């Protein structure tokens, strides 16, 4: 298994697609940072407009933490798209290049082979999120400095700088679980579809439908609470004034179960299917 993992890791490191993905994320980040700055001042003007009648404000809210929060809101659609393209390529490229047959001629167990791909895809996702987190923090804090964060989630919530930083870190951790889910789904789709372009379309469609379903009220509470599209934005709960850690933990645990289910389905289908 260790050899399979190192082989997969080598493939990921060697392929130029990986670096294109990292570059694309950096470009997206920069663009979002620029728009977040302008969006941020407009948001603050609107949010604090009626408070200006009664209060003087001392200190600024247009800081790195607000920018980070706006970036967090914007990233969770663009980043999974890039991740899904890269991770699905781990399987589709093998089919395209015909290397899948070559590997299967060796004494390699099919389930172990595909499991190694899943593990590498997950590790790559975590690496990308860590890279994203480090670069956004660096850019946001070095350009805009730190300070209190204001967020509107049913109430206008103010968080002190240190508290905001912790919440943003946890939001990245929770967001990483959602990203892992997306990349596992894309890998499973790649096993089913085999062709790169078709897999990308299916993965993008899955992402769009998921994003749309997130806003739909399914009336039945169980669906609203446990259906996977509803679990994707659990990170947002970290910005309620009182954090419901239990709910966040349950949501992330459920999403991990869905992730395992998708991975199990993919492994099962790959194991049963003929290579060709």
């Amino acid at each position, binding site marked *: 298994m260790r050899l399979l993992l190192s082989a997969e890791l080598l493939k990921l490191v060697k392929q130029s697609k990986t670096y294109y993905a990292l570059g694309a994320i950096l470009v997206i980040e920069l663009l979002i940072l620029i728009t977040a700055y302008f969006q941020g001042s*407009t948001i603050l003007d609107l949010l604090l407009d009626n408070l200006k*009648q009664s209060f003087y*404000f001392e*200190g600024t809210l247009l800081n790195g933490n607000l920018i980070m929060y706006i970036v967090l809101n914007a990233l969770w659609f663009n980043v999974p798209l890039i991740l899904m393209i890269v991770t699905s390529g781990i399987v589709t490229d093998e089919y395209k290049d015909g290397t899948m047959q070559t590997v299967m001629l060796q004494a390699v167990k099919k389930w172990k082979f595909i499991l190694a791909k899943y593990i590498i895809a997950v590790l790559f996702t975590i690496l990308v999120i860590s890279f994203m987190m480090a670069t956004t923090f660096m850019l946001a804090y070095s350009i805009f400095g730190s300070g209190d964060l204001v967020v*509107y989630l*049913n109430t206008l919530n103010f968080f*002190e700088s240190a508290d905001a930083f912790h919440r943003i870190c946890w939001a990245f951790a929770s967001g990483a679980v959602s990203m892992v889910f997306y990349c596992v789904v894309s890998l499973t789709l790649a096993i089913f579809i085999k062709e790169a372009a078709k897999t990308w379309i299916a993965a993008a469609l899955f992402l769009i439908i998921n994003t749309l379903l997130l806003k739909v009220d399914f009336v039945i509470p169980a669906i609203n609470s446990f259906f996977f599209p509803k679990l994707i934005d659990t990170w947002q709960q970290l910005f309620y004034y009182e954090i419901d850690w239990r709910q966040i933990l349950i949501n992330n645990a459920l999403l991990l179960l869905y992730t395992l289910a998708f991975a199990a389905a993919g492994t099962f289908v790959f194991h049963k299917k003929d290579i060709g």
Partner: protein
Amino acid sequence: MIRTIIIFLLFSAQFVQAQQIDQDLLRIKKRMDSVKQFSASLILDLDVPFIKMPTKTAKVNYAIGQKMKFASDDFVMLPKRGLDFSLSEIFKYPFITVDRGAEKRNGRVIKVINIIPTTNQSDLALATIYMDTKAVRVVQSEINTRKEGSYTLMMTYAQLKDILPAYVEATFAIEKLKIPLNFMGKGTSIDRKKMRSMETKTGKIKMRITNYNIKY
């Protein structure tokens, strides 16, 4: 009959003009004016239904004839009105006072007066001042302004001799929050019924004032 009414109106007008500014208020103002400069630490707690904010700290600096200056490491919201301990805002334009009697509070006699500006230049529409005449200080004021709404100030003092309050509670009306849609989290729901009922709410800011450094 008409003659009687005219005579009554003339006398009434003269009576209003003849009203003097309340002597107790002048005594308080004089005492307040003896404070040439002060600095203090503020601990602020905001109590507004749709705002959640942790307790904040700030420093305040005041010098006679100048606006109060605040400094804080955090983002703080300070009430625009309510920190005018010197009553300079009220004394800026001419006014008359009307004695509204007295009431007892915590065993102390509190004199109540109305302040009515006599010029349109003043932003003040009407103020009700509750004075502890023995301690020569204001304990409560209800201010109605033309442009900045109404607010009430409750002042508590640490000691009988204190000239400046140790605790101030400012109550004010606050308009509903306007929410930019693009700033709402995906999980945010809009309860229209609740939003409508929130059009005007009462907010409170509680200020604990410590470490006074007063120069007379």
